[in-house]
């Protein structure tokens, strides 16, 4: 049936939209439209764009692959210290990103807690590598995925998991074929949050992975650098970032809805 949304809800919602969208409009208004074309065809920008997509998508993939089991564990398995673990998982979100990146450096840098062994045993150096940028983005963005999905799993009906078990489904099968599909909208939302956060990630990346063009210089880093000398270019780059993410999100939405 047609629902008539009550004004008491529509008004704040409209205020929220205005507030969230207005700065974007202001950004568009200030954009250097004349030089936009030149900028976009510059190879450095294309490189940064490509790298941003690679890094953000890889970070999202890692966050989903590791975060989904973690969300399930936090939601469904009762173990001592669960509340503490839940809070710990949130911490990367609280750390100012630059500090987070520094902490990553302490942990996974070439002389870091674990990084020294990565370096010694596998010759793996994360800073200044694309992998490092992915690590930084994952670190910062994964908590968003875990928390969103965990809440959704806790909200879903455990009776259906019982039903699956009586049909012979192992916990793993139940997870794959019941739990995950049931919370699909939240998984999608969580992945979108994670991806968006990874795409805009700047501080941790610069602190942990540096700013190497073609390797760790993602669009936000290029944007930040441009801010130093050519602010219009920074605005233009941000708009590119916005356009790309808008395109991806709208097309993904369409895909989920059509499913």
């Amino acid at each position, binding site marked *: 049936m047609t629902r008539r949304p009550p004004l008491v809800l529509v008004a704040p919602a409209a205020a929220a939209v205005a507030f969230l969208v207005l700065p974007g409009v202001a950004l568009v208004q200030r954009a250097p439209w004349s030089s936009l074309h030149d900028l976009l065809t510059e190879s450095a920008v294309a490189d940064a764009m490509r790298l941003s997509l690679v890094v953000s998508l890889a970070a999202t993939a890692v966050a989903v692959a590791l975060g989904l089991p973690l969300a399930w564990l936090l939601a469904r398995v009762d173990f001592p210290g669960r509340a503490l673990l839940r809070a710990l998982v949130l911490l990367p979100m609280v750390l100012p990103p630059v500090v987070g990146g520094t902490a990553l450096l302490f942990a996974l840098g070439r002389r870091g807690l674990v990084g020294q062994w990565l370096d010694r045993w596998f010759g793996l150096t994360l800073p200044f590598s694309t992998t490092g940028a992915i690590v930084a983005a994952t670190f910062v963005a994964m908590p968003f995925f875990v928390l969103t999905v965990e809440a959704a799993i806790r909200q879903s009906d455990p009776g*259906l998991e019982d039903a699956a078990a*009586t*049909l012979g*489904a192992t916990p793993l099968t139940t997870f794959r074929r019941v739990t995950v599909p049931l919370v699909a909208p939240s998984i999608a939302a969580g992945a979108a949050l994670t991806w968006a956060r990874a795409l805009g990630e700047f501080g941790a990346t610069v602190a942990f992975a540096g700013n190497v063009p073609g390797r760790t210089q993602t669009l936000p880093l290029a944007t930040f650098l441009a801010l130093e000398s050519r602010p219009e270019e920074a605005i233009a780059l941000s708009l590119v970032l916005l356009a790309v993410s808008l395109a991806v999100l709208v097309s993904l939405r369409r895909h989920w809805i059509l499913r």
Partner: protein
Amino acid sequence: MTAGVSVVGGVRRGTLTLDAELHVEAGRTLALLGPNGAGKTTMLRLVAGLTPLDRGRISIDGVVVDEPATATFAVAESRSVGYVFQEQLLFPHLDAVDNVAFGLRCRGRSRRDSRAAAVRWLERVGLGEHAGARPRHLSGGQAQRVAVARALAPEPSVLLLDEPLAALDAVTRSTLRRLLADLEVTTVVVTHDPIEARALADRVAVLEAGRLTQEGSPDEVASHPATPWIAGLLGVNLVPGEAQGTDVSIDGGALHLAEPTDGPIWVAFEPNAVVVHPGRPAGSSRNVWRATVTEVTVEGDRARVLLSQPAGVAALVTRGSADELGLAPGVEVWAAVKATELAVRPR
């Protein structure tokens, strides 16, 4: 330890403590009856492995699957049990076919195979044309049938059915009743309908407030209901009383027996045996009392008349005489039973 299902023990659920013994021989069907909240669903969950016992032992086909004393607990997916849940619990993200195919796929059958078998099952429960529908696009009875097909499809060695025919229309109900009666699987079926119990089950068990109050063949239970609740369910009248010779004092009155006895007894009599009169009947019957009609239910060509006194006692009269006497809730009548119709059992 024999084949079949055997439960001895109990568990606490909120305010209820379930503590009962239940045995189903291999291949046989046990109907589980009892008032709401008696613990029937809890009993099925124990057997399925969804709720662990607090104490006691459950074995299925000779294998102990739950015994807290020895820390034995076989998880649900290892028990080969088919469960039709009271609230159906269909997977909302799968269509009817995939719901039914789920158990087959979990048991290693290919997707194609499973779906083909699932479609056959849906046809058996009369849902062939709704095979592609998601649960929220099915009517209540259609969903119930999918739930039955889903539980049967993997051919489990034990079936647990929680009011499997509740939402079905009468015609479908008899189709499924036949389908279930033809299965030779160890089955526990929860039902509120004694006719269904008789149609489906070899034996009947009654749970009341977490305890087993009667167990036996449908005929045994029907002829000797052990508690007023069971008697009420079966439409038999069962009144507790205190006998002294041929006099029995009951709640709010007295009855007179043909043969003398003593002590606490149950007095049982068929609703058939209760005669209803508009005024005090003349004649020799000493068991005559005044009562108010509380409910009249028409069953085919007969009417079941519930009386206020003794509480819950029913009379079965022809519809003709019910109409003649103008029987309706609130009407005052006289009831009579011959002493020879009263059966007596110690309490």
